[in-house]
């Protein structure tokens, strides 16, 4: 069971100011390389859209809590 406070933090709506800050924030070289490495791994390991969709379904099923 995820605590209500966590759910509220996850689902809260961001403000226009938060959005603007994010869009204006420079992306560091480390952040960029980390994301590009993930993309390289994902698209190499799962080269087709079909395989990517299947991976996400399986990964999400592993991650989500069991039904009560």
């Amino acid at each position, binding site marked *: 069971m995820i605590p209500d406070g966590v759910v509220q933090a996850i689902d809260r709506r*961001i403000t226009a100011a938060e959005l603007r800050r994010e869009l204006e924030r420079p992306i560091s070289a480390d952040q*960029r390389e980390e994301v590009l490495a993930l993309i390289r791994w994902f698209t190499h390991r799962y080269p087709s859209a079909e395989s990517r*969709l299947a991976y996400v379904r399986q990964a999400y099923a592993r991650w989500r809590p069991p039904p009560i």
Partner: protein
Amino acid sequence: MQPSAFDEVAFFRALHQSGSRALLIGRRALVFLGLPVLTADYDFWLASDDIVVFNAVGKQFDLHPNRTPDEARKYGRYVLENDEHIDVLVARSVPTLDGHVLDFDELWTRRRSVPLVDVDVHLPSLDDLILTKQVASRPKDLEDLRLLRILKEQAP
């Protein structure tokens, strides 16, 4: 837990064959583009004239709408669900947080098509997908925005 027996490829094939003007948005669109993000549901932006056709596709997969087409047009969105969950936006236009108006017909005109086995799945252009992440955004949308900005930098 195992994922449900929902056949995604069959669903997208039926959607393609239906001729519905449906844009895949949300995190599954990011997955199509090669970004490894997790998501539970599907998000589509659908032409409001195509609700009945889209629902007929859903019915083949035992997906049921929570609103009638008229209600969906009134509220601008609805859900198709069983043990899968599909959020469907049907508003003709939506504002971003900073007041930019996104118009479905314009996004549809600029759409990109991504192959899935033997059919094409329609996504907004990368610029438009970035804008859809700025509508009623949550914290995870900020993370997605960062991923999409980096992907855009790499685009030819």
